[in-house]
C-alpha cells in the first residue's frame, strides 16, 4: 500500500479525535431535582441545546404514568406533587430520543404525606415563567413572623426545616448538574478504547479468515 493515502486517512482520523474530545453524543438527557413540593428540571441534548416542547411524563415508584405534559420553550418544566415518594421523570423529543431521570423522594419536603402504593398522587404543572417570582416572595410573607421591635425572627421547626431544605438544594443543584453533565460526556479514553476494540475485532476476524482460507499459501512461504 502506498504510504501517502494511509497517512492522509490517519491524520484525518486523528484530527477528528481531537475535535471530539469535548464533543458529546447526540442524545437526550433530562435533569430534575425535588425542592419542597416542586420537582423542577429541564431536558437537554448532549452539547447543551434544549428541546422545545418535548413531551415529559412523571412516573411514580411503581412505574405508573401519573402526569404527562410538555416542557416550555427553554426545555424546562416544574411540577407540584402532593406526596413524597420516589419519582421518575421521562422526556421524549419525538425523534427517537427518550431520557429518564430518577428523583429521590428524600429531596422533597418532609411535610408532604408519604405516598404509598395505590395512592393517587396529584400532580400539577406550574408555569415556569411566572412561578419563579412567586416561589421566592411567597414563603417569607406567610411563614416568617417578624418581631418589629428588634430584628429577631421566630420560626417554627417546620418552617426552619423548609428554609434549610431550600437553601441546601439551591447550593447542591449546580453540583449535581455538573456531575450529571460529567457522566454524559464522551471521554477521550473511551474513544481510544473503542477504536482499539474495533481494530481488535477485525484483526481477530482477519486472523481467523487468513488461517482458514489460505493455508496452502502460508505453507509455501519460506
Amino acid at each position, binding site marked *: *500500500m*502506498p504510504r*501517502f*493515502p494511509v497517512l*492522509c*486517512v490517519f491524520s484525518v*482520523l486523528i484530527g*477528528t*479525535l481531537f*475535535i*471530539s474530545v469535548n*464533543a*458529546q*453524543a*447526540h*442524545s*437526550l438527557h433530562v435533569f430534575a431535582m425535588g425542592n419542597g413540593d416542586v420537582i423542577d428540571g429541564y431536558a437537554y*441534548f*448532549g*452539547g*447543551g*441545546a*434544549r*428541546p*422545545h416542547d418535548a413531551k415529559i411524563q412523571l412516573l411514580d415508584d411503581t412505574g405508573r404514568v401519573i402526569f404527562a405534559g410538555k416542557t416550555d420553550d427553554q426545555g424546562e418544566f416544574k411540577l407540584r406533587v402532593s406526596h413524597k415518594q420516589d419519582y421518575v421523570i421521562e422526556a*421524549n*423529543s*419525538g*425523534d*427517537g*430520543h*427518550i*431520557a429518564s431521570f430518577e428523583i429521590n423522594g428524600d429531596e422533597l419536603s418532609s411535610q408532604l404525606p408519604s405516598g404509598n402504593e395505590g395512592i393517587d398522587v396529584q400532580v400539577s404543572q406550574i408555569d415556569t415563567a411566572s412561578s419563579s417570582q412567586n416561589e421566592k416572595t411567597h414563603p417569607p410573607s406567610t411563614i416568617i413572623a417578624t418581631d418589629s421591635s428588634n430584628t429577631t425572627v421566630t420560626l417554627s421547626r417546620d418552617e426552619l426545616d423548609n428554609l434549610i431544605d431550600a437553601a441546601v438544594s439551591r447550593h447542591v443543584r449546580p453540583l449535581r448538574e455538573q456531575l450529571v453533565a460529567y457522566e454524559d460526556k*464522551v471521554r477521550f479514553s*473511551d*474513544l481510544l*478504547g*473503542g*477504536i482499539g*476494540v*474495533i*481494530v481488535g*475485532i*477485525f*484483526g481477530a*476476524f*482477519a486472523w481467523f*479468515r*487468513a488461517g482458514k*482460507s*489460505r493455508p496452502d499459501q502460508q505453507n509455501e512461504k519460506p
Partner: protein
Amino acid sequence: MHIVDGALSSEVVVAGAVFAVAGIGYGLRKIDIDAMPRVAMMSAVFFVASLIHVPVGPSSAHLIVNGLAGLMLGWAVFPAIFIGLLLQAVFFGFGGITVLGVNTINIALPAVLMWWLVSPFLTRAEGKSILLAGFVAGSGAIALSSIMVGLSLAASGQEFVPTAKLVVMSHIPVMVVEGILTAAAVHLVKKVRPVMLAPVGSLRNAA
C-alpha cells in the same frame, strides 16, 4: 439518527434485528482478507464521527459518514456499522442494545443503496462529476436514513409525517456537511488509491 431503547415497539425491534442479522451475514461473506483493514478503518471512522456533535437550532446533530462507508465497503458496511453502533451503545449509552438491529438497518441500508446507485457511475466519473457523485452519495444516505428513522417510529405508533419532518429537518445541515465531506474524501481516494472504491468482494478477483 440513533433511536434509543424504549422508543420502538417490540415488533419493529424484532423485525430490525432479523433484517440486520441477514445484512450482517451477507456483508461478512463479502469481506475478504485484503479488504479487512478497510472495513475496520471505516468502522472506526463511523464510531468516532458519530460522536462529534454540533448543536443545530433546537436540536443537535452529528456526522454519520454512512454514505462514504457505503461507497468504500458495499455490503460490508453492515458489519462495520454494527460494530460501531455496538461500541457506542456499550461505551456511551448512545443508542441502545435492543435497538441495535433497527439502528444498523437504518444506517447501513441507505449506505448500501447509495453504493449500488452511485458506485457504477463513480468508477467511470472524472473531475467534477466525482465530486457530484460523492455529494449525492453522502447527503442521499443521510436523507434516506432520516426517512427510515421516521418510518421505524411510525411503525411503532407515532404519526409518520410530523415525526419524519422533525428528523429530516434536523438533519438538513448534516446532509450538506456530509455531502461536502464525502465528495472531498471520494475525490481524494479516487486520485490516490482508486482501488479502495472497488466493491469489497471483487478485490480478490482483481488480485
